[in-house]
């Protein structure tokens, strides 16, 4: 088992390097040299050239990339073009807001989506099943930013119950959490339903019924336990999607998280800031997928046995 964990962690390194390379190359396509971006449009060309030289911008692409990686290993993601301070500080300041938002949204999504999915599957073709299936269809088509605006309109402007922007108290988080979780709630509901339907039809479920186990035992002990694996993968993947969705949600509710930071940084062409945030989010996503893989092995005795042998 330990060997498997180590192997998975080692395999992550090339993926993360590739992620950094991709983001690095894309951001390199942006017009303008760092010297020009830091000093502004009016600065004399000589000063810009000198600064570019100091920052190592005139080196070949691969050399710059290698230096960037080496700096990252030392924990240095470069300095912001705008403030001149290390970008990682700002990223770490903003991270808790995004984490709070997406973790709560995941919890909300799982605690509502999974039970509804199970219920729909158990009572397939009932009125309730149709109702939930149709709602899921609608929810999946909702743009998060539009839903957020509608929530602000109703709960902040009309009813005056909740604050529409900022992150000072827990009440500020209620609407963003609901907004962020809704589209993914739909995904989780649908996928839980279909995996449950698949397992309910398996032979071992029929056997359990035949030997006279109660309906509750059949559903929770025999069916759900086996349906859990795909559901966990879905939840892990949704977390990654949510980190992206948080950009829009944070913008709508002006939450000071990583998402708003990325959007502001992109507007101001503060490239080191954007890269640090995108890389951090992608690395977090790969770690979550790693944890999902490990959970898989921990839950499923078949997979566990496979790695014990090898």
């Amino acid at each position, binding site marked *: 088992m330990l060997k498997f964990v180590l192997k998975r962690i080692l395999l992550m390194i090339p993926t993360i390097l590739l992620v950094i390379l991709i*983001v690095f190359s*894309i951001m390199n396509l942006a017009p303008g040299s760092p010297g020009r971006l830091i000093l502004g449009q009016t600065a004399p060309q000589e000063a810009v050239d000198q600064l570019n030289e100091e920052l190592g911008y005139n080196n070949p692409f691969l050399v710059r990339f290698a230096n960037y990686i080496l700096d990252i290993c030392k924990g240095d993601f470069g300095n912001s073009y705008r403030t001149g301070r290390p970008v990682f500080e700002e990223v770490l300041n903003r991270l808790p807001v995004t984490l709070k938002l997406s973790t709560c949204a995941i919890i909300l999504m799982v605690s509502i989506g999974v039970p509804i999915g199970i219920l729909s599957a158990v009572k397939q073709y009932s009125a309730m099943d149709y109702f939930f299936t149709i709602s899921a269809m609608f929810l999946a088509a909702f743009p998060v930013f539009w839903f957020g605006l509608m929530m602000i309109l109703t709960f902040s402007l009309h009813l005056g119950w909740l604050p529409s922007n900022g992150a000072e108290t827990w009440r500020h988080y209620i609407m963003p959490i609901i907004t962020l979780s809704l589209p993914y709630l739909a995904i989780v509901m649908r996928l839980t339903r279909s995996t449950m339907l698949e397992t309910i039809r398996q032979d071992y479920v029929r056997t359990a019924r035949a030997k006279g186990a109660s309906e509750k035992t059949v559903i929770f002990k025999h069916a759900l336990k086996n349906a859990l694996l795909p559901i966990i993968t879905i939840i892990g993947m949704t977390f990654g999607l949510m980190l992206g969705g948080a950009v829009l949600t944070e913008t709508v509710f002006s939450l000071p998280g990583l998402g708003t930071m990325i959007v502001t940084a992109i507007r101001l062409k503060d490239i080191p800031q954007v890269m640090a945030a995108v890389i951090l989010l992608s690395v977090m*996503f790969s770690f979550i997928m790693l944890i999902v893989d490990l959970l898989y092995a921990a839950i499923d005795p078949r997979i566990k046995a496979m790695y014990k042998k090898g």
Partner: protein
Amino acid sequence: MEAVNKTQTKKNSQIAEIWRRLRKNKAAMIGLVIISIFAFFAIFAENIASYEEFAVKQNIRERLQPPSSEHIFGTDGYGRDVFARLIHGGRISLTIGIVSTAVSVFFGAILGSMAGFYGGKIDNFITRITDAVMCIPAILLALCVASALGNGMINLMIAISISQIPGFTRVIRSVILTLRDQDYIRAARSCGTSDARIIYKHILPNAIGPIIVQATMAISDMILTAAGLSFIGMGIAPPQPEWGTMLSEAKEHIRYAPYLIAFPGISIVLNALSFNLLGDGLRDALDPRLKD
């Protein structure tokens, strides 16, 4: 000649069969009708309301008028007719959705079939890259590309296509892996058919079902992502009437003119929903065994 005719009829009857099954699916039909209505308005947008006169020309005297018989969806903060902007915006949104999906399918098909067909090192290389790209949340990747390339419709399409290519690559690769060792492929190879021709003539036609389903669903995703990017100011720049851009402009007037938020949002939801419904229906119609 006769043989050609025979395959022709067979092809037609297959399409007819799929259409017959699809027609029975009420949800898919509702989706198709909604898409057709939006497509109709998008195609004839210029004939219904001139772009220059109604969709972009500012008219401060008529600003923020609620829906009336003259302006059925009201006017926005610059006095422009919301209905005219919506139908011209539909033109942009639908074009973006369809064109970027086509681009993603094209590149996904090339990469996916290369990976699946050749296997080995090429497969390993392509799979590694797709895995890495899939680690970056799609909207962030699109944001990076959009910010590097700048605003504009073409750049927005490039940005959102790139983030969808890995998904298609994966689907197509997995389909091709199952087809690669079939006898008829071996037969084609033994006749000395070139790899490109085998992929194009013998493999891709068999992979078309899953591709169509995935593509229909992707259009809905693309419309949502494009609107999202425009909403945060990284997509279609004002004064062009994209739905996301309209929502972002309407945000200022949320207090006095909530209808400005309602209509573009409803358009996005209806379109995204319809393409999803149609995709679901197509999946069932193309492969009835998959239906649960």
